[in-house]
């Protein structure tokens, strides 16, 4: 009977917008077991971490002391603002680099699509630690080979501990796969070719087309890409640790020895805040996405 109902429903709609397989079939017991067990696996560490951070070791009971300590703790402000700055710069550069590239490839240079796709997806599987060892080797050219040349000065300028630009440039590479996929999905979803041709026929210049047509159409994709990049930079440890800069994650590791509960409190808080922000963006996404049907 359910099958019949589904076939009828399926026949009625022209395009299957959210194709979901028949769910009422069978008992569904395995599904319940999977959701329960994995749910426990994912909830327990977070819940236990919260308990770990709020229990008062001295007197027993509950305290929010470790959360209140975060802003004032040694080194936090510097490391966190540095990470925020790195994240902001990375977002700006990666978007400036990728939006024109993705749009250009889609509209005028489809022949380059495979090359761009391959290059942007490489950092997804390339171990960041291998990339950063390579970057470190290149950076060591400055003292080894180009000492007292402008190039060496430029290399050293990239490595200022207060704001290490080299991290920004490496993070852009690490963010490429996510940004490319987000933007590419947006470009494919919207019929950019028709839209831009219409705009061009109405006399808009290319910069005008980019700002007034392409960007608004890609708004959600750009927002998604920006957010993923931001979160990625805030959580990135490997590159910063190997190059020896202090960012938010390396700060957590440094203080974990002396302030265990503080480090867990910061960890839990950063996970929760990131998740809430992502939920918010996905809610925005859905409101817009209902018409476009993913």
């Amino acid at each position, binding site marked *: 009977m359910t*099958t019949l109902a589904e076939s009828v429903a*399926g026949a009625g709609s022209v395009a*299957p917008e959210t194709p*979901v*397989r*028949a*769910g009422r079939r069978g008992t569904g017991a395995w*599904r319940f077991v999977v*959701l329960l067990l*994995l749910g426990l696996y*994912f909830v*327990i*560490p977070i819940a*236990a*971490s919260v*308990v*770990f951070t709020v229990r008062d070791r001295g007197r027993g009971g509950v305290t929010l002391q470790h959360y209140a300590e975060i802003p004032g703790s040694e080194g936090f402000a510097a490391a966190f603002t540095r990470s925020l700055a790195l994240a902001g710069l990375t977002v700006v550069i990666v978007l400036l*680099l*990728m939006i024109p*590239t993705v749009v*250009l490839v889609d509209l*005028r*240079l*489809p022949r380059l699509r495979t090359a*761009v796709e391959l*290059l942007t997806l490489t*950092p*997804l*599987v*390339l*171990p*960041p*630690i*291998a990339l950063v*060892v*390579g*970057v470190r*080797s*290149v950076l060591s050219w400055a003292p080894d080979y180009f000492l007292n040349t402008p190039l060496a000065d430029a290399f050293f300028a990239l490595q200022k501990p207060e704001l290490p630009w080299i991290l920004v*440039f490496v993070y852009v*590479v690490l963010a490429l796969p996510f940004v490319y996929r987000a933007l590419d999905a947006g470009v494919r979803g919207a019929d950019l*070719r*028709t839209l831009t041709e219409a705009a061009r026929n109405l006399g808009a210049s290319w910069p005008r087309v980019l700002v007034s047509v392409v960007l608004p159409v890609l708004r959600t994709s750009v927002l998604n890409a920006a957010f993923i990049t931001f*979160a990625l930079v805030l*959580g990135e*440890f*490997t590159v910063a*640790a*190997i190059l020896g800069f202090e960012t938010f994650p390396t700060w*957590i590791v440094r203080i*974990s020895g002396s302030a*265990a509960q503080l480090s*867990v409190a910061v*960890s839990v808080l950063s*996970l929760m805040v*990131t998740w809430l922000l*992502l*939920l918010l963006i*996905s*809610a925005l996404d859905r409101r817009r996405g209902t018409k476009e049907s993913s």
Partner: protein
Amino acid sequence: MAPPVTPTPRRRGRRGRALTYLGALPFFLYVGVFLLLPIGVLAVEAFRSTDQVTFVESWSTDSIVAITQGAYRRAYLGSLQLSLITAVLGAVLGLALAVAVLQTRRNLLLRRLVLTASGVLANFGGIPLAFAFIATIGNQGVITALLQNELGLGRGGFSLYSMTGLALVYLYFLIPLMVLTITPALEALRPQWREAADNLGASGWQYWRYVGGPVLAPPVIGATMLLFASAFAAYATARALVGSSLPLVTLQIANALSSNVTVGSDSLGKALALGMVVLIGVVMAFYAWVQRRTQRWLS
């Protein structure tokens, strides 16, 4: 893919065309400098070594030979083993979770919660996850204390600071990664296929054996490759959990780079990193091959 009826207006001829290609130049320059150059330098400098006494650099395969032996060999094997096991487990569990979540059709909230949480854990994870697990089942952990003090049970020989413990933490970001990667493929399974199978009298098992399974196999294998690469490259979690006491390549690389004592350990670090790139290259070639098959299946 065929362009619409009206051809793209060609306004500027050959010069415009060159200008268009110029527009793609920043991307290729950037990737060349910050992605290809470092890897290329790695591939060259892994074959340079500095003499212990005279500090003269020369070409040699010393580092390459060294990383295939002893502790480094064990580190590669340890990393490969851990990545393989966690990738397969993560793929199976992640697939089960994705299917279970997608089938709860009415519960869109659950679906969105799981997908966004997956996004956070798969991409942002690393350090915070390690500390969450330390707080849970570490030596001072909440669950550890619960098992030992309240319930009077031991930990059954389990330690968070071992390969098994590390695997448990890795799964915490690998399962979400699988959910994220495989969900589009699951959504691409057309309900009509299931209906057609049903109408022809196929059982649920037969549908998965002859229709769903073969269509899903390539993306599942591809996603497993991705999980493998992710586990293989993981450094932050291992560093925060166990310092450098386990045989893992990423930890060995960090060790080699941070030791200023031995001359040539830098070159060793480069060789170890190059070894990782080569291994991942092999895996990725396989992945590309799988992707091609996927496209053939689903187009």
